[in-house]
């Protein structure tokens, strides 16, 4: 199996505070990785370094072998021009906690925008595909609606369809259900589970331990900017080796 996402020695500080400390992580194609950890442990920051929404201070991030955000010149990494970074990002799906749909565009326009403007694909062709994607997330009848006319769960499903429309190599989910009312969490998790079944490579930052146990191939437990332990859910969630993991799971379960 080839590593789709490959992080080596990723280090990042905000001011004097080190949020990521020498993180190594390798994610195989077609796997689902769930990142757990207490708030402030660096989960979201780690996720955001993968598509260079967060610049790193040291280390390297590769997606399908391509260095993300930088170009290596000898022993140094030079940050790429924004245009090149944007092109790299269009192969990496990202789903936000707050959905961040474009409120002035219809659901269909939200999904169609990036494939047309970032990947220069034909609008007519993308529209057909977008409608199919919306049907797949159960919103085939909402193409003409505006995001604010939808529930939170529906908006997040549109956001997932929007990420899928780019045919990404990997999709990153940043606490996709944290902004949802409890009764809407299930419909979003169901869509993510279906993607996992179809063999997409997913990285999910979440607090839903039950989801992690059910869907994840690998659970990564992060604390204080370091990976405390990682492994299959039966190991990390049911038989955690580390006291900090146990303490965290006791609090959330």
């Amino acid at each position, binding site marked *: 199996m080839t590593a789709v996402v490959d992080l080596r020695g990723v280090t990042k500080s905000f001011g004097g505070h080190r949020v990521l400390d020498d993180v190594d992580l390798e994610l195989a194609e077609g796997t689902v990785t769930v990142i757990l950890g207490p708030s402030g442990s660096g989960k979201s920051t780690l996720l955001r370094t993968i598509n260079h929404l967060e610049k790193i201070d040291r280390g390297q991030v590769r997606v399908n072998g391509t260095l993300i955000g930088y170009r290596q010149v000898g022993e140094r990494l030079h940050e790429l021009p924004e245009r090149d970074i*944007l092109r790299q990002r269009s*192969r990496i799906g990202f789903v*936000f906690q707050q959905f961040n749909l474009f*409120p*002035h*565009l219809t659901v269909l326009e939200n999904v169609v925008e990036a494939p047309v*403007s970032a990947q220069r694909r034909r609008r007519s062709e993308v529209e057909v595909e977008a409608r199919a994607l919306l049907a797949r997330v159960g919103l085939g009848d909402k193409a003409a609606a505006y995001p*604010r006319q939808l529930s939170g769960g529906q908006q997040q499903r549109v956001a997932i369809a929007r990420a899928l429309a780019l045919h990404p190599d990997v999709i990153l989910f940043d606490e996709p259900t944290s902004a949802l009312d409890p009764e809407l969490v299930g419909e979003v998790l169901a869509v993510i589970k279906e993607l996992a079944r179809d063999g997409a490579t997913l990285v999910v930052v979440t607090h839903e331990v039950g989801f992690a146990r059910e869907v994840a191939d690998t659970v990564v437990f992060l604390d204080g900017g370091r990976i405390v332990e990682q492994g299959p859910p039966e190991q990390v969630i049911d038989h955690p080796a580390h006291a900090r993991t146990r303490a965290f799971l006791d609090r959330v379960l």
Partner: protein
Amino acid sequence: MPSLSTVRRSAPTAPPSPRATEPVPPTGADHPATPPAPHTVTPSVDRPVLAVVPRRNPWTWVGVAGVGLLVAMFVNGLATNPGWDWPTFGRYFATETVIRALGTTIQLTVLGTVAGFALGLVLAAMRLSSNAFLRTVAWAYIWAFRSIPLIVQLLFWFNIAYLYQTISVGVPFGPSFASVETNDLLGALGAAVLGLALHQAAYAAEIIRGGILSVDEGQREAASALGIPRRRQLTRIVLPQAMRSILPNAANEVISLFKGTSIVSVLAIPELFYQVQVIYGRNSRVVPLLLVATVWYIILTTLLSVGQYYVERHFARGSARSLPPTPLQRLRARWAGFATQASQATRRPEQAVR
């Protein structure tokens, strides 16, 4: 559920409740002695549905009478005071000279607005740039042009054209400035447009910058995460959303620029206000001619306001679950309402019970 218990209290016979056999706890003043109400309320003939009477506010009517009196006095004055000299107003209101001057005023407004907001957009982008030099230059421009009174700036441009001519730099309006009368007119107009546009740009820049800042950071981030090219992020994602907060301020600016063109009369440009002054200088009918200008300013400002309403509505797409009806739609709905009411007039009492 206080309302439920209130209803219960007025009911002399409560339906048997399963808890009625339980010992009733000691009741305070605010607890009815009747057993706790079950969750379903069975309609009862003994509990009539009470009609609601809105609160009356007699002082409002005193206020209405007072203000109404003042309005009546003002309208009466407009109609009867011979000083307004309505016949003269009527004679000059739509004369060719006035209409042509109005055209010049509109031309100045349009050119000032278009050039001003185009430069303002560039300045706003500079102020939001990550480059400190560009930020500083834009800041200094805005600082300078907001500090100089428009009238001073206009006179300055009027004279700098003359200055440029002496140092033999080809300026579009420079050479014509000092020559014959018709060209003179063109040169002054150029100076006026330039002055208005540069002045406007400083304000437009701040309005556009404020609008861009009002758009949630998550929008830029999402566009960026999707790989949407930078310029497209601005034109497709950020600016259309920024328009919602830009538009009311921009409309204010356009309207104040429109009226501000009257300042250009210091450059002897035959715009509306200057032309009216010329006419009353000849026939000394000051008040009716000022009224001519006033009414035209009001008419065009009204048109701009109506335009503003519809443009704002356009950019409000998706901001609410459904857009409120336009005044025209509301009027039509009300007419339709009157019609239905009229046809249902006979069934009225029945409706009131429901």
